[in-house]
């Protein structure tokens, strides 16, 4: 029933597209952004060197038309698109590109905070003045107006696809300077951002910043008539902030908005029946039942972890609790990623096997501390309570006793999970890009991770193997390495139980055309039209 | 013809889940113009209910009033609510017991006096106010101009009672009913108020129904006295008659049990036995019988009728013989 709006290009010119946003954008400078609502708005105004092909996680050219690297994967040469102008009329070129790179690398003071430059820290490491925290980035040189050379300190599978992250969009150097873009100040528990981030975002995208009307809770973007590519058909894109989900649904039904993100799975059918287009994105996430080996030595026994896996009726869970299109996960990444291993067998629900495995391991009557989060829904985990209920029921049937703890997501759940308090916990991941490293690398790339894999002997070797795969410049080889690792993880290590991949959706009015649901939630409104 | 003729007035309170209660039971008396009639009796004997019944102020629901109250030829009990409102305050005035709670605490005294003038004498607010000032002056409130704008809590108890009297007499009613107007006051203030009332009643020629439990007050003020016990008039006589020769054992007992200021010390009191609540719980019989030293068996089974005995009305099967002061000694 998914309708991929692939009919790009047809559709009327003009009109306003009103999107119901769950929250206000924190700011408009994507470099400091960390949350989806902020990215969604920035994405329409900015472009990066690379982008993602609509509807996939595959990298495609954007401001750079092509790129190549040296065999060691450390030096990258980008050929840039010509005739591109920023919204303030200044030209985009190699120099501007390097200004952006150097800006990122040279963040100072409060801006270096994990809460501010999170994406940089995650993907490039440290800054120019943090020698104890090495950076992946080394330098950027403008060879000529349309050629920029970026040097890295090491190879990584994630480059250059990370440049497709909205965070690494290219801003106008002029505007950056004029509006004091790097002047982030810590104030109390939080950070305040400069004028650039609040009122003067200047990119190259199909829409320009209009206004942020806080009184009406509306963000307005207007068409960039000087856009270098296909000009936007819409006159305006308006983001109306409606925090309450039901209110968003009702606003859509009342015709006040043209679409909103992440409709409740339970509403999909109803919305479709009412004639709305529920655009289902490819499931680009994984929900897993985390296992922490630290506190309970029994959990260091593979048999026990396998028993848990067999005990959970994941098929039933997916069918009853997850939206249409959700799948049981065989491994920690969806099948669209290079490195997915098709030969990993699907582990079926088998209560008897679970019981016998537990018996073999001498772990009958095992008691585990099971954490689940309240006050949250995630695309991979629409209703934690119900999911917890289903899993807990299964585990209890297998004779595992549970000491259940629930805490608010931001009110102790994540902290406790990070501090290794629970034995079992519910968590998941939504991919940022199509590299395997972004998945299993994130999960198991260190030994002191949430699963505390360091407690088992294989923890270290797994981390090393992941590092090796990541720095392998050859794509085919790298893919094979990840694929082997996936099999190993599932068959020999099983550090956690992957449960499901569930597709999030986007709901739009029927007359909205040209929006392609993206696994990365990277929907661009540039090609969209109304009516 | 009498100004007020009360005949066989009976008030029955119906209470949910309880037996109906006869608070007033066949009370009859007349008030001649300019006359002062006393209603005396102990707490709960139905004095206030009688006065409220005459004024038509009993609650509409729950109180059944029968008998007749003829004022100046008009049957008051048959008047409509509206007609009664026209008469109250104009033809009949009333003064209540507790002067503080009987005045509206949030309205200036002046308004409380003048509103009755506006209502019944069609005065404008301004005229009414100046008349109110005169009234306050007349009842002896010093500096009446200032008091007009003051509130009840700013006045002393005696002043409040004076203001209430001013309200009741504002329209010069022909009949004033005063329900224990001095009970809440000190003796010295009581004397002031009683003197004031006496004077006003004489000046205006108003008839007065004085309700009190204090035989002393009655003795000084009333022409005719009705003694109530448990809702019935048990004895009625002119005041000299009554005090000199009480005939009903109750009246007799009361007089014997009150210490008198002018009596030499050491004279023993002779109390009535039991207490007011020791009433006879059924309809027949004399309510006072259980406490009565003269009680006959007849008293317990048959209600004594109101009879004219030796020039006075009496409800008793076995009255005290005049001249026998000794009431039988009652063990306490």
């Amino acid at each position, binding site marked *: 029933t998914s309708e991929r709006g692939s009919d790009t290009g047809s559709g009327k010119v003009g009109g306003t597209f009103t999107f119901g946003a769950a929250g206000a954008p924190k700011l408009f400078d994507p470099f400091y952004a960390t949350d989806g609502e902020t990215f969604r708005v920035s994405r329409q105004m900015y472009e990066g060197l690379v982008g993602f092909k609509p509807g996939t996680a595959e990298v495609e050219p954007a401001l750079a038309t092509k790129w190549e690297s040296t065999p060691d994967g450390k030096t990258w040469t980008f050929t840039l698109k010509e005739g591109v102008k920023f919204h303030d009329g200044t030209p985009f070129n190699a120099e501007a590109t390097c200004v952006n790179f150097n800006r990122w690398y040279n963040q100072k003071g409060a801006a270096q905070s994990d809460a501010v430059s999170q994406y940089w820290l995650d993907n490039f490491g440290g800054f120019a003045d943090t020698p104890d925290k090495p950076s992946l980035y080394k330098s950027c040189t403008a060879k000529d107006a349309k050629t920029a050379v970026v040097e890295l300190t090491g190879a990584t599978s994630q480059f250059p696809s990370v440049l497709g992250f909205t965070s690494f969009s290219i801003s106008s150097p002029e505007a950056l300077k004029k509006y004091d873009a790097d002047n982030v100040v810590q104030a109390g528990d939080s950070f305040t951002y400069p004028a650039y981030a609040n009122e003067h975002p200047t990119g190259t995208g199909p829409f320009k910043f209009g206004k942020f009307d806080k009184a009406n809770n509306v963000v307005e973007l207007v068409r960039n008539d000087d856009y270098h590519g296909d000009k936007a058909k819409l006159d305006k894109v308006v983001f109306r902030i409606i925090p309450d989900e039901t209110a968003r649904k009702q606003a859509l039904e009342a015709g006040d908005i043209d679409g909103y993100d992440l409709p409740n799975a339970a509403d999909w059918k109803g919305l479709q029946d009412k004639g709305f287009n529920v655009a289902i994105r490819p499931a680009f996430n994984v929900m897993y039942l985390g296992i922490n080996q630290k506190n309970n030595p029994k959990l260091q026994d593979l048999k026990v972890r396998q028993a848990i896996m067999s005990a959970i009726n994941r098929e039933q869970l997916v069918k009853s609790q997850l939206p249409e299109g959700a799948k049981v996960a065989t491994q920690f990444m969806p099948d669209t990623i290079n490195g997915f291993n098709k030969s990993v067998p699907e582990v079926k629900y088998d209560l008897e096997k679970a019981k016998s495995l537990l018996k073999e391991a001498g772990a009958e009557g095992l008691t585990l501390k099971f954490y689940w989060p309240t006050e949250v829904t995630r695309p991979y985990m629409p209703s934690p309570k119900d999911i917890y209920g289903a899993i807990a029921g299964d585990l209890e049937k297998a004779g595992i006793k549970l000491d259940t703890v629930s805490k608010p997501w931001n009110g102790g759940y994540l902290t406790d999970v990070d501090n290794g308090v629970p034995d079992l916990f519910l968590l998941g991941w939504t991919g940022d890009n199509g590299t395997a490293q972004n998945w299993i690398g994130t999960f198991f790339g260190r030994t002191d991770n949430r699963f505390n894999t360091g407690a088992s002997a294989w923890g270290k070797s797994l981390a090393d193997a992941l590092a090796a795969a990541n720095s392998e410049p050859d794509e085919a080889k790298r893919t094979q390495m990840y694929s082997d690792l996936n099999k190993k993880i599932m068959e020999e290590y099983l550090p956690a139980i992957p449960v499901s991949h569930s597709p999030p959706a986007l709901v739009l009015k029927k007359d909205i055309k040209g929006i392609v649901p993206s696994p990365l939630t990277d929907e661009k409104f540039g090609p969209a039209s109304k009516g | 013809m009498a100004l007020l003729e009360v005949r066989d007035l009976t008030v029955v309170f119906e209470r949910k889940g309880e037996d109906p209660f006869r608070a007033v039971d066949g009370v009859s008396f007349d008030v001649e113009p300019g006359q002062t009639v006393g209603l005396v009796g*102990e*707490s709960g004997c139905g004095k206030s209910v009688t006065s409220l019944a005459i004024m038509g102020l009993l609650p509409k629901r729950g109180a059944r009033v029968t008998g007749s109250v003829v004022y100046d030829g008009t049957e008051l009990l048959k008047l409509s609510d509206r007609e009664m409102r026209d008469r109250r305050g104009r033809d009949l005035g009333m003064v209540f017991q507790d002067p503080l709670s009987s005045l509206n*605490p949030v309205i200036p005294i002046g308004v409380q006096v003048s509103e009755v003038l506006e209502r019944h004498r069609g005065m404008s607010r301004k005229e009414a106010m100046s008349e109110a000032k005169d009234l306050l002056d007349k009842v*002896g409130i*010093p*500096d009446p101009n200032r008091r007009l704008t003051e509130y009840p*809590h*700013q006045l*002393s*108890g*005696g*002043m409040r009672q004076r203001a209430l009297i001013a309200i009741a007499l504002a329209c010069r009613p022909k009949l004033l009913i005063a329900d224990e107007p001095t009970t809440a006051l*000190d*003796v*010295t*203030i*009581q*004397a*002031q108020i*009683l*003197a004031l009332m006496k004077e006003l009643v004489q000046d205006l020629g108003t008839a007065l129904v004085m309700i009190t*439990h*204090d*035989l*002393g*007050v*009655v*003795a*000084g003020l009333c022409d005719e006295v009705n003694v109530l016990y448990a809702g019935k008039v048990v004895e009625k006589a002119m*005041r*000299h008659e009554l*005090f*000199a020769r009480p005939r009903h054992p109750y009246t007799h*007992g*009361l*007089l*014997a*049990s*009150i*210490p*008198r*200021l*002018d009596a*030499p*010390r050491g004279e*023993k*009191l*002779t*109390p*009535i*036995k*039991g*207490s*007011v*609540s*020791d009433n006879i719980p059924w309809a027949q019989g004399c309510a006072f019988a259980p*406490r009565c030293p003269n009680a006959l068996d007849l008293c317990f089974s048959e209600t004594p009728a109101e009879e004219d005995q030796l020039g006075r009305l009496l409800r008793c099967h076995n009255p005290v013989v005049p001249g026998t002061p000794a009431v039988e000694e009652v*063990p*306490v």
Partner: protein
Amino acid sequence: MTELSASSAGTRTSAETLVSVEDMKVHFPIKRGVLLDRTVGYVYAVDGVDLEIKRGETYGLVGESGCGKSTLGRAMLRLTEPTNGRMIFDGTDFSSLKGEELRTTRRRIQMVFQDPLSSLDPRQSVESILVEGLRAHGMDKGKESTGKRLRELLAAVGLPAKSLRKYPHEFSGGQRQRIGIARALAVEPDLIVADEPVSALDVSVQAQVVNLLQELQDQFGLTFLVIAHDLAVVKHISDRVGVMYLGGLVEEATADDLYAEPLHPYTRALLSAVPVPDPQVEDRRERILLAGDLPSPANPPSGCRFHTRCPWRQQTKCDTDRPVLREIKPGHKVACHWAEDIEAGKIKPHEVAPILVEEMDGMSPDIPLVGPASVTEALNP
């Protein structure tokens, strides 16, 4: 005045004097303030009272409402702490006792209250009401003897023995007052302070209690302090009577003397104001009508407290000097500068213009503050 009472204290406390009150003052502070409560004034409820009560006599205290009778009674029993002054009780300074000593001495001074219902704990049976005092003073010696004592007590106050198991609400007003008296009697006191013992009772029942009090006095040799506003009652039962006006004693004499020849103008007015249930007397009586009301005890007049209403008020002394209670005739004391002249008819009464009684703004504690003082107050459902 203070010196006078202090110097004469020794001589006064003769063997036959049971109680002597010396310069007793009770001032209730009136508090106001922005942040912390400051005392902005006082209610001079009792303002310098000296009196003596002889063993076995009944001392009656009369006065108008608010003149401080009850407060004086309570201060004597230390139910309200006096601001100044002391009470010598049977040779010991009761005012300075503390702790256990105070508690055990309390046995000897008992009180009977005005409202017979509210002075009895509704949740206690008559038995436990009576036993409580016995127990507090170790007089509860075994079931047998206590039971006997209780029956004696009930018999003394004229209640049937089966009353023990009943609760206060099951009695009539007069009977309740008897229970209150029995409670006081239980601990074998020397002095009983009766605050308005009959004023809440029906007229027909009053006499029963009055008679009872007299009988008990004869039977047990008790000393009584009877407080009442009803002059007739006080006169009837008292040997000596003190008249209070605005926190001070204005006259003290034997009951008959007081009635026969009142010396203080206030007493005269008071006596003349009391109605007598006898039309002949009433018709004959000359009334002395006082003008105006009792001034507020928070703002008492200077000099003689009574001068604002006194028909015999003189140009000198009255509004400046406070008269001392002095003995004019044997056993007859009066606090008036001109008592002799008035008696001799040298001074004639004159008209008095009523003076407005000014409440100091909000100072009088009589005004009930209707409505809550704050949000939180109103939360009381």
